């Protein structure tokens, strides 16, 4: 399965793969097309791949709960809290910790914090009936403030006078590079395949889809709907949290205020564009990452804030929602 990475575009295995995994063919073509066009627009391919890493994970954080009928808009909060968890766990890394161990420990920090943050929404839903769309949205603001508190207080870099930033990670805790991209990009892609397998080929994925399709029938049929809800949100939050940890260990090298602002929301847009199908999520993420990276330089030239990229991405989603809505509506 790893051979479907865009790094292996040779023709023969591509034909074989098309037969075996027909669902991946369309997205793969899109990714190859996008990645071969963007250099002509002055957009750097490695930058797009590096940006795709967090977006892929925050998109999966939306897609898994979506299969159980849940709308997780908390990727933003789960991401920054994951970054925060990474910074907390990074304090446990010492001079003698081997590099791979350090990286795994910090990644676990992100997974645990991000997962628990989404788990809070799951708990509120299962125990108190609080709608998860609302709770995940509101918890984003709380998470952002927790990080602001952390980087001005307990996790503040003592060397950095008045800047709201955490301590820089030691080199042993930074992600190794493969060429121009860090290893997190590969990890995110492998996890996409894992999620595709989980959703489409496992018993859990089948139950989750059944619960998402018709929760009342699922309950009557004896499916543990509450457990599926908690599981799906925990898993989603864990992936978004991992994205935060990878961003801390990768491009940024430290926790700071404003780290990855918008990554959660862009992942949300990507997952909805792809109708929560992992293959198409890869294509949607590469597209949105290209817009986002291309937008960065445009923003600097025009003096626009980073959030301007929402105008393009949200418009794309609105057009797709409007176009697809009637089409699927006709089936009813």
């Amino acid at each position, binding site marked *: 399965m790893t051979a479907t990475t865009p790094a292996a575009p040779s023709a023969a295995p591509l034909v074989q793969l098309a037969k075996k995994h027909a669902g991946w063919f369309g997205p793969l073509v899109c990714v190859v097309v996008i990645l071969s066009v963007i250099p002509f627009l002055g957009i750097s391919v490695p930058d797009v791949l590096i940006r795709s890493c967090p977006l892929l994970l925050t998109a999966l954080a939306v897609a898994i709960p979506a299969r159980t009928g849940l709308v997780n808009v908390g990727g933003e909060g789960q991401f920054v809290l994951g970054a925060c968890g990474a910074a907390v766990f990074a304090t446990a890394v010492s001079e003698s910790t081997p590099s791979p161990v350090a990286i795994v420990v910090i990644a676990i920090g992100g997974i645990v914090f991000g997962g628990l943050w989404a788990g809070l929404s799951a708990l509120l839903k299962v125990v108190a009936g609080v709608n998860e769309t609302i709770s995940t949205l509101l918890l984003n603001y709380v998470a952002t403030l927790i990080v602001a508190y952390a980087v001005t207080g307990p996790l503040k870099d003592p060397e950095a006078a008045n800047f709201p930033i955490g301590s820089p990670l030691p080199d042993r805790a930074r992600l190794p590079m493969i060429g121009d991209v860090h290893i997190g990009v590969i990890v995110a892609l492998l996890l996409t395949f894992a999620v595709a397998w989980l959703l489409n080929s496992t018993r859990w994925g089948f139950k989750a889809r059944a619960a998402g399709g018709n929760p009342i029938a699922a309950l009557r049929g004896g499916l543990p709907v509450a457990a599926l809800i908690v599981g799906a949100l925990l898993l989603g939050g864990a992936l978004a949290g991992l994205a935060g940890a990878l961003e801390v260990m990768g491009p940024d090298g430290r926790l700071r205020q404003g780290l990855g602002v918008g990554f959660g929301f862009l992942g949300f847009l990507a997952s909805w564009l792809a109708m929560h199908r992992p293959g198409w999520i890869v294509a949607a993420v590469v597209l949105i990452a290209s817009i986002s990276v291309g937008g960065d330089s445009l923003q600097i030239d025009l003096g626009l804030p980073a959030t301007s990229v929402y105008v393009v991405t*949200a*418009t794309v989603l609105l057009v797709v929602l409007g176009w697809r809505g009637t089409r699927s509506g006709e089936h009813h």
Partner: protein
Amino acid sequence: MFIEDVFAGAVRYGSSVIFATQGEVISERAGVINLGVEGSMLCGALAAFATASATGNAVLGIIAGTAAGALLASLHAFLVLWRGANQLASGLAISFLGLGLTAALGVNFVSKQITGLGAIEIPVLSDIPIIGKGLFAQDALTYLALVLPFILVFVLSRTKWGLILRATGERPEVVRAYGYDPRRVRAVAVTIGGALAGLGGSQLVLAYTLNWVENVTLGRGFVAVALVIFGAWKPVQAALGGLVFGAALSLQLQLQARGVDVSIWLLQMTPYVLTLLVLTVTSRRQSQQIPEGLKAVFGGSPS
């Protein structure tokens, strides 16, 4: 006086949220969830601020803000009602669009100054201890926010228009049998809802912040959606939720002003945490009251 100041702040800071809750009540009672209120508030806030800054006239600002909110919401109405788009996804995408648009278009207004809406003190009444300052020394829009919920209760329960609106949210086929088009009723309701959110955004910048910053609403639109659930889709209860949010904000600012030694970041969480808390306590009970037409989108899950 501490309590008097907190109460006055609760009303003043809650006012923008009250407008947004009333708009969302109208929209949801007609059967459409609009998570785009955050976007409508932002567009309303920027349109109001830009107009007030260009013309020096706050009233023109209010008109522009209301129109901007309505315009964005009508896009949601079109996509959901005529194009069959998913309500939650469309609303959120609309909010992101509003956030991006206002961030990009608002860049030039960041350091601009405006003359906002001044407080209109009502003599004698504003001297009443504790509540006087809160209820009778506010800006014009806040007075409107305080009476609007009662007007809305009257409209919803006593007028033909209100009856049609509620019926559209509960039994659209009945409305159709009486010769009205439920889709049009819903479109009007969503657009009015957006107009009120835009009005809320206008109050926020014209009477409270008096300046423009990116994402000035900080989730107030999403909070409003939560408070409509808390208020069981009833205008006055939802407005009380707005006051609770305002009170949390006000308490936080008062504590900060009095130099209480708590991290400002932790203090700033209180309005959101409080909103989540009231939702946690009331969600189960309110789920019985959800308008029939919303159940498919919002109340689908049995747990």
